[in-house]
């Protein structure tokens, strides 16, 4: 037990230390979400207009961008393992008397902190896109971002246990992640698309993470939008519209599965 907890904190500590000292990554991690927000936001906002009473496109997309920041950042847990393997530091970690399970948990914990921090930095853009923030909303966001971060960290580590090169990892990441992101309801409401797209999106677990985050934002802005708007984009599964808690449960289950697989795969590698 002591070996697990020591491994968890020492690995998380190092990842955090490394993150604050690595400025290119710090800046780079904001580039893509910001680009999406500016380009899609500016490009489509006029054309598309309000998606629901009181919610225009940019306000719809903004929570998705926060989710995206967290998702991308969480996957970095895997990239950092591949990086460490390539530059040798992973050996220093693996010969230390640290539990492998603890190492994985440390990666996940460190990345969750980084991911939530980055999600919060994106909150600075809220006033610009016309989304109101209040204390309760921010407070609700913390556990939610955590629960969205864990499955992706797990997925990253799972992939990293097999990959030997950064290029390989990044390619796999593009292949898996790009469709998952685009089909998660991040950029368009999935209630209003062709059936095949709707079905695929509903099978994509990320959809529920994005939905939960969006619901928190929209219900937080309930005063400025009409009563039902926060549910206007709700994900309907078998006639039931998913609430925040149910969305969170989907993510939690996914998190447990991917994390267990990651622990198993990381423990087996040489």
């Amino acid at each position, binding site marked *: 037990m002591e070996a697990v907890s020591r491994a968890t904190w020492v690995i998380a500590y190092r990842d955090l230390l490394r993150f604050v000292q690595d400025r290119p990554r710090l800046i780079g991690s904001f580039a893509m979400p910001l680009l999406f927000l500016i380009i899609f936001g500016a490009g489509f906002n006029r054309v598309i207009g309000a998606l629901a009473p009181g919610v225009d496109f940019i306000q719809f997309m903004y929570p998705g961008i926060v989710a995206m920041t967290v998702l991308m950042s969480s996957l970095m847990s895997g990239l950092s393992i591949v990086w460490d393997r390539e*530059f040798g530091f992973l*050996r220093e970690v693996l010969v230390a*008397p640290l539990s492998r399970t603890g190492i994985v948990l440390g990666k996940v914990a460190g990345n969750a902190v980084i991911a939530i921090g980055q999600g919060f930095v994106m909150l600075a853009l809220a006033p610009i896109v016309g989304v109101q923030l209040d204390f309760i909303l921010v407070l609700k966001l913390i556990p939610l971002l955590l629960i969205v971060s864990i499955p992706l960290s797990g997925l990253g580590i799972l992939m990293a246990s097999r990959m030997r090169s950064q290029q390989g990892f990044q390619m796999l990441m593009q292949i898996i992640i790009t469709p998952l992101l685009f089909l998660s309801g991040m950029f368009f409401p999935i209630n209003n698309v062709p059936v095949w797209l709707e079905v695929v999106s509903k099978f994509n677990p990320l959809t529920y993470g994005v939905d939960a985050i969006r619901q928190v934002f929209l219900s937080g802005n309930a005063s400025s939008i009409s009563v039902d708007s926060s549910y206007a984009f709700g994900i309907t599964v078998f006639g039931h519209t998913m609430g925040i808690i149910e969305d969170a449960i989907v993510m939690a289950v996914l998190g447990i599965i991917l994390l267990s697989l990651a622990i198993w795969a990381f423990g087996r590698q040489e």
Partner: protein
Amino acid sequence: MENGTKIIEIHDLTRKFKQLTAVDSISFDVYKGEIFGFLGPNGAGKTTTINMLCTLLAPTDGKATVNGYDILKQRRQVQRVIGLVFQDPTLDDYLSAEQNLRFHAYAYGVPRSVREERMKQLLELVGLSDRLKSKVSTYSGGMKRRLEIARGLLHHPQILFLDEPTLGLDPQTRFHVWEYIHALRKEEELTIFMTTHYMDEAENCDRIAVIDQGKIVALDTPDNLKGSLGGDVVMLEAEEPENAIHELEEKYNLSPHIQGKTITFNVPHGETFLPKFLRNFQSKLVSVSVHRPTLDDVFLKLTGHAIRDQEAGAWEQFRRMMPH
């Protein structure tokens, strides 16, 4: 040393990579407090053996214990008592020296009360105290190596594995590294298991195992290994080499080799052989020299090639290809 306590015991240890048998059923023991040298040409299986002993790689077959702990079943205990300096760097370049050391101390659970003092002492030992705060990426290759040595000792290991610790170090630093290795062994009762390609360094070892193509081909003290060659090496140059060789074979019953203009042969006691030989030898000599056998000679005989061959520069290889 022979009757000391065994700290590493290896029985029929084997590791295969697909068809390739990198380590082929090796068995030997290492005694507490000795400097054990592990020599062999490139690809002989040295690093693979170390990786198995330090729990990074599972053996395909056989078993080994380190400080009495099984390398497969008691990994955590093994990991606690060993320190490592790998052949390739394993530092985090983006952190400072101090941060790298501190990470190591946390990872090994070094108590706070000893941590800072020990870090200070080790950094002084390797002469890096003034570069404590700089990122490792700004260090030279030799400085990184020294930092890794300091880090490997931070948690007071009982056994230090050094995979070519002096690779790429300047002669002065190499000398210093050896100074600490000797000092450490005295002060900390450390056992050292090391590989090297420098034969003059191998002389510092108490015992040497030579591994070739995954098999142990010799294991003894440096003196005994050299003794096994059958005496001193005499080299001479004669005006008429054919006559000289003939005379050596007929009169002295020796089996000389000729390489270029130099005739080489072994005799048990070079210094007493030579005066008598010079008085009686008929052929005209240009030069004579005698030297004690070196580990290079041993290595050449055991593995069929000089250890330097593999590292000879392009120019050297080019020169050898040219007709003389």
